[in-house]
């Protein structure tokens, strides 16, 4: 599954020469530091980390990348993605979730997410996905594609 083409001026242009500032939203306090280190391995600079989305910070900082663990988002996830997009229009939005349904992935992409990672991805997969999204602006975990393929196969 491919997301919609990224619109507007892309902040990822030129990221090859600098580390992308990244805002990480992760509620699991004992996991957040490990996640941040993994993202830094992928070439990001984690500039801020919080348990919940701080929209004021987001609007002020306009980070290159917003990485959200959506399992702990109480509100509707596509709505949340749209809110993030409206506060920081040029950020690359990465969603990290335990969901593996293709329909869910499509809804997130349509809402404005650039990259989708499942929680079953290894750190190597996440790093590779980050490099991909930083270079071309989009990435979708292969597990979503596998779900889409299996649904398609069951219909034909």
């Amino acid at each position, binding site marked *: 599954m491919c997301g919609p083409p990224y619109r507007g001026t892309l902040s990822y242009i030129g990221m090859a020469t600098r580390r992308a500032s990244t805002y990480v939203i992760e*509620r699991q306090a*004992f996991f957040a530091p490990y996640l941040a280190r993994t993202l830094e391995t992928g070439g990001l600079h984690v500039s801020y980390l919080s348990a919940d989305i701080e929209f004021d910070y987001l609007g002020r900082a306009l980070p290159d990348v917003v990485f959200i663990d959506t399992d702990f988002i109480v509100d509707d996830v596509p709505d949340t993605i749209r809110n993030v997009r409206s506060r920081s229009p040029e950020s690359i939005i990465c969603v990290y979730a335990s969901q593996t349904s293709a329909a869910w992935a499509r809804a997130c992409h349509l809402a404005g997410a650039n990259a989708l990672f499942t929680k079953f991805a290894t750190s190597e997969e996440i790093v590779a996905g980050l490099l991909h999204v930083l270079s071309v602006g989009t990435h979708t975990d292969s597990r979503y594609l596998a779900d889409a393929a299996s649904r398609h196969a069951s219909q034909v």
Partner: protein
Amino acid sequence: MAYSPAEIAPPAQAPIRVFVVERQVLLAKAICQLFDQDAAFAAAGDAPELDAHALRDSKPDLVILDIDHGLGEMRESFTAVRECVPAARVCMLSAHLSSELMLRALSAGADGYLVKDITPSEFLASVKAMARGGFYADQRLSGMLLRRHALKRGHNREDLSARELDVVRLIAQGLSNKEIGERLMISDKTIKNHISNIFSKLHLAARTQVAVYAIHNGLV
């Protein structure tokens, strides 16, 4: 005969062996890294599924079982772990801050229930406590359960005196304090005391709630 310092020192505790059953790959690695950084723990093992061989081989003191990601029914998962490593303590790990889920986990036989938003130090302290034979329940959820228990107790009509029950019935009939006083031949001040006691004992804050209580409990 004098004892040497080595003989009177408390026996050193062996490092705690933990096995983590966690499908979220990065989280499993993060947990294992936390244990690696604490001298109280031996290197932890992990697997994305309930792997009987790996569990038996690692001889864990404690198994951490993530119940969020498709490991089947909680009780079945717990039983499978118990069959593999009967002596090991079992801790359920979940993203859900749910007292119902915690009760289900504990009633299934778990020795603890951890919510994934706790801090690293809380996490390590609770795992140590469980591995040493203790029991751990998330304090926020325990608080909720205790409050609920207190509310249930508070709603017991046996806590009310006969006179307070009279006042409850009359409030439910829509009488004012003055009318209740006239009916029961007691002063306005005494009525206010009775109502205050009723609110306190039933954990209520308004006359309408008292009326609802009376209806639900067949007092009117």
